[in-house]
Structure formats: structure tokens, C-alpha cells
């Protein structure tokens, strides 16, 4: 009896080992989204969009999971790797530590991480020059403000978000050196990225203190600031994805990170055996970060602002304007 059970178990084990291997030659991609989930209308949504685009156009096999808890990330990454997925993509700085632990254990699996740098040979780190994008929207905010006071609402006080705020206020001060910049943070734990009620309260306070344009980098909490802008008839600036559509007329622009392109290109490279580890930078130069302009905000951005901002972009690309980078501060 016991023997029977053991044989069955063994058979199951073997079959499961084989079934999870890909014989068809289809590239299998595992996507680990972080706490915001695939519908955060922001960062994770962009990664998911890039991956589903690859699924359709490149005929890969895509599986995604959402880490509802930061502690779960490591096992989610390991799960994909153990099932011999060809490429495992981690979305967000919160996955950095787990990935530096898991990646060396599976040298044959390719890994990619967004917004974090993991220096292992089989990991591609996709980093964005947030400070450059933030500088651009900071300059736009300074051009749009009538009260000479702009605001910034970040999710958590962490280096990545400081990078946004530093670039933003530098951009605003580039246009108007005497401008007032308020800065607030939503929370101290992961719930900060998911607390629109709180971010709305922060925005109401900033608008109440005289700010009339607020840049928000707080994941799914962004919508709270947009609501406040609508209530108070002021302006907000979105982040990561193009969020202009969420509240047309109240969102000046969005600081766009081409997370979707980064994800798509990485999958494409893996499929064509061109995958390389190491650091890949996305900045203004290769349109990895940018401000967005579409039918929802065309009335808010004047022609004058557009010309001026294109000029500034050129200067940054040529190195004539040095954008302060929180990661490289002394």
C-alpha cells in the first residue's frame, strides 16, 4: 500500500517536472507585480500593458501574479524560477532585495527588475531617470502656477521618491527661482501607495496653503490628489503612466515612465536570444521618461509652454542643464 502511494507520488512528481518544462519553444514569462496590482492606473498597469502587448504580438506565454504582501515577493519570484520560466520580471523597487537573493540560485533563468539595480549576470536592471522627467514637469508646473506656489505629494519618504521631488523642485526653480515648493508624504508603510483618502487630505492642505499645481508620485494614492484638484478647481500632475484621462481638465500633464516599452523590449530581447544582464537606463534621451500631451490636457498646455519645455529637454539631453539626482547626491 505504502509502496503504491510512493510510486504514485513519484510518478506525479516526475510528470509535474516535465509538464512545467517548455518543449514547444514558446518563451514563458512570469511577471511579479507589486502591491499596487495590475490596475493601479500607474506603474504596475504600465508593466502589465507592456507584457500583454508582448503576449499578443510576440506569442509568448505570460503568467502574472500580484504580491499583496512584500514578504510574498521572494516566494513568487522563486516559484516562477523553479518552474523554469525563461524570463521573470519583477516590478518595483520593493522586489530588489528578493531578486538579489533568488537570481543567483537560478543562473539559467533570466531576470529583469524595474526601478531597482541588481548586479547579477542574469539580471537586467531597468532604471529610469525619474529626476529628468520630474524636472520637466516641475518646469511645467512653475509655468502654470498663478500663485507662485507648487506642491509635491509622495507616497513614502524613500530615496526613489526623493529623486522625484528633488528633480521637481529643481525644475520649478529653474523657471521661477523664488517659487515656493511644498512637500508632503502619504505614509510610512506599504499602505501609503493605496491610501487615496489620505493623499486627498494632503492635497487639500497644500491647495489651502496656496499651491495651485501638485505633482503626485504615490502609486494608487494618486487618485486622491486628482479628486482634490477637481474639488478645489486646481491642477495636478500625474505620474508613471499617462494619467491625463482620469480627470480631464484638472491634470496638467503626467510624468511618463516608459515601463511598458522597457518590459516589452526585454521580453523581445529574451525571445530573440539577445538578452543581456546589466543596467539599462531610460531617460529623456531615449524617451524613457517624458511629459505627456494628449486630447485631455491640450488646453492646459499653451504653445508657449510647449516650446519652452522642448528647449529645456534639449538642454538636459546635451548636458547644458545639470539635473540634481538624489541617488548621486553627496
Amino acid at each position, binding site marked *: 500500500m505504502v509502496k503504491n502511494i510512493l510510486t504514485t507520488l513519484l510518478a506525479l512528481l516526475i510528470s509535474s517536472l516535465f509538464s512545467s518544462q517548455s518543449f514547444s519553444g514558446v518563451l514563458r514569462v512570469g511577471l511579479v507585480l507589486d502591491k499596487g496590482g495590475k490596475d493601479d492606473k500607474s506603474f504596475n498597469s504600465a508593466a502589465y500593458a507592456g507584457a500583454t502587448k508582448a503576449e499578443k504580438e510576440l506569442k509568448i506565454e505570460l503568467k502574472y501574479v500580484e504580491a499583496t504582501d512584500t514578504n510574498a515577493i521572494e516566494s513568487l519570484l522563486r516559484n516562477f524560477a523553479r518552474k523554469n520560466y525563461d524570463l521573470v520580471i519583477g516590478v518595483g523597487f520593493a522586489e530588489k532585495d528578493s531578486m538579489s537573493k533568488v537570481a543567483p540560485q537560478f543562473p539559467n533563468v533570466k531576470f529583469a527588475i524595474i526601478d531597482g539595480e541588481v548586479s547579477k549576470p542574469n539580471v537586467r536592471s531597468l532604471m529610469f531617470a525619474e529626476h529628468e522627467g520630474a524636472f520637466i514637469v516641475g518646469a511645467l508646473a512653475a509655468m502654470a502656477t498663478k500663485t507662485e506656489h507648487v506642491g509635491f505629494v509622495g507616497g513614502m519618504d524613500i530615496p526613489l521618491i526623493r529623486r522625484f521631488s528633488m528633480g521637481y523642485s529643481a525644475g520649478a526653480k529653474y523657471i521661477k527661482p523664488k517659487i515656493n515648493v511644498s512637500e508632503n508624504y502619504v505614509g510610512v508603510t506599504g499602505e501609503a501607495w493605496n491610501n*487615496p483618502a*489620505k493623499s486627498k487630505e494632503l492635497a487639500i492642505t497644500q491647495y489651502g496653503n496656496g499651491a495651485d499645481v501638485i505633482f503626485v508620485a504615490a502609486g494608487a494614492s494618486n487618485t486622491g490628489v486628482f479628486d482634490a484638484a477637481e474639488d478645489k478647481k486646481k491642477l495636478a500632475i500625474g505620474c508613471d503612466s499617462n494619467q491625463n484621462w482620469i480627470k480631464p481638465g484638472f491634470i496638467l500633464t503626467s510624468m511618463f515612465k516608459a515601463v511598458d516599452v522597457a518590459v516589452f523590449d526585454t521580453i523581445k530581447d529574451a525571445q530573440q536570444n539577445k538578452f543581456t544582464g546589466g543596467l539599462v537606463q531610460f531617460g529623456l534621451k531615449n524617451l524613457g521618461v517624458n511629459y505627456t500631451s494628449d486630447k485631455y490636457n491640450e488646453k492646459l498646455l499653451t504653445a508657449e509652454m510647449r516650446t519652452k519645455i522642448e528647449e529645456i529637454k534639449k538642454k538636459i539631453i546635451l548636458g547644458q542643464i545639470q539635473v540634481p539626482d538624489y541617488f548621486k547626491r553627496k
Partner: protein
Amino acid sequence: MDLFLFFTALFLATLRLATPLVFASLGGMISERSGIINIALESFMLMGAFVGAVAAHYSEHAWIGWMAAFLGGLAIAAVYAFFVIELRADQIITGMAFNLLAMGLIPFFSKILFNSTGSTPSLPLESRFSFEPLLVAALLVLALSWWLKNTRSGLWLLFAGENPQALLASGVSVKKVRWAAVTLSGGFAAWGGASLSLYLASSYSPLMTGGRGFMALASLIFGKWRPVPTFLACLLFALADAIQIRLQGVQINGTEIPVQFIQILPYIVTIIALAGFIGTSRPPKALGKEL
């Protein structure tokens, strides 16, 4: 004049931040006064936030969302009541289980309805509240404190938590009283959630309660399980939060206080408050005890 404006803004922010806490802690109060520990408030709130946002989205009416949230809260609390009253499951563990359940259940329904595990579609201004939940919260405090003091059923509730045997002896079913109390607590806590999704924000987003259910429990203990003091405790916590928002980035002698220190202010107030600053806070005698 500036000072006046500052205090008005602070006062309004306090009221807004307190609203979800008030509903949740009043819900918790009813349940705990009847003798049932309720740490599942967080899940009731999440349920209310979700059901409210969904109903308001489809009906395009905030009040329909509000009522639906109440019903949703009743429903999930009824399941909780079934477990802890009928099956006599451990109240703490069941409460935790419900908090975890809500985290998984809501994305499941959300996926079916909107093909999204994240937030629900955002609600336009017309199908949101602009101030109404504030009034409802204040009325509820008054109504509950009157009800507990002046009605027969209010006394039943108190006795179910203090001396259930006496209540039994007088021919009233303790079980029924507790069932009613626990389900009603779900409805009220769900209003707390709905005031987040329909009033303070504009849609349901995952885990949007952010621990407010536990803050509500703290207010409840701080308020010694009585409606008006509990309400004041909620206001105190909300005030700490509102001050915290305004203190961020303030400089003292040219050096900026790290923002994290300011952000933990509400939690420090909670700890100090609960560490006996208020004198003894005595829970209902039969709280958490089986019949």
C-alpha cells in the same frame, strides 16, 4: 485672520479624517458591548467600501451606494456572527481570518465585475458625497447614546455583555441580542468604509482602509466603550493625523525634522492614550466569554 483660517482648515480636516473611524468604532462598540470581540472591523470596512463603490457606480447614486454598503456589512457580519456565536469559534482568530478573507474575496469579485483586481471605476462628483457622511456620523453618535440609556433593547445589549446570565433569567435570548449586535456592527463599520470610497476618495482601491479598523478599536477602548467618549477619541486621533499633515516639512531652527517622525505622531498618541493615560478602561465583563 490667517490663524482663524488655519484652525478652520484644521477643524474640517479633523472631521473628515474622523468620519470613517467614528462609524467603525461605533460598530465595534455595539458588538463589544454585547460581549463579542470584534477585530474584524477592518474587513467589514473594506466590504462596505467595495460594495458602496460598486453600487454607486452602477446606480450613479451615492445614497444607493451608502445603503448597499450597509447591507454588504450586515451580510459579512452575519457570517462572522454565525462563526463566533453559533459555532463558538475563537473570536480573535476568526476576526483575523475575516480580515484576510476580505483581502482575497474583494479582488475576486472585482475581477468578475470589472476585470480588474485593483480599484473600481472612479465615481464622478455627482455620485459622491460632499459632506453627508459627517452628519450621519454625528447623528449616529447621538442616537446610539440615547438608545443605550433610554430603551429596553439598549439595556439588553448592555446586559448581554455584562451579565448574560441575568439577561437569560429575565427571558431574553442572549444569542439573539448578540446576533443583532454583531450584524449591526457590520453595517456601521461598512459605512465607515463607504465614507472612504464614496466621500473621502472616489473609488474603492485595494486595502484602502489602511489599518483604520484597528485605529477604531483603539478609539473604542480609549472611549471606554461609550458612544460620546469614543466619538471624542476618534476626533483626537483624527486631530493628531491632521496636525501631522500640517507639520510635515516644518523646520525648527533651520533643520527639518525627518518626515517619518512626524508621520508616526498619530500612533504615538494612540500608544500614550492606551497606556493608561486616561485611567482604567474596563471592558464589558463577559467580553469574549462563551455562554
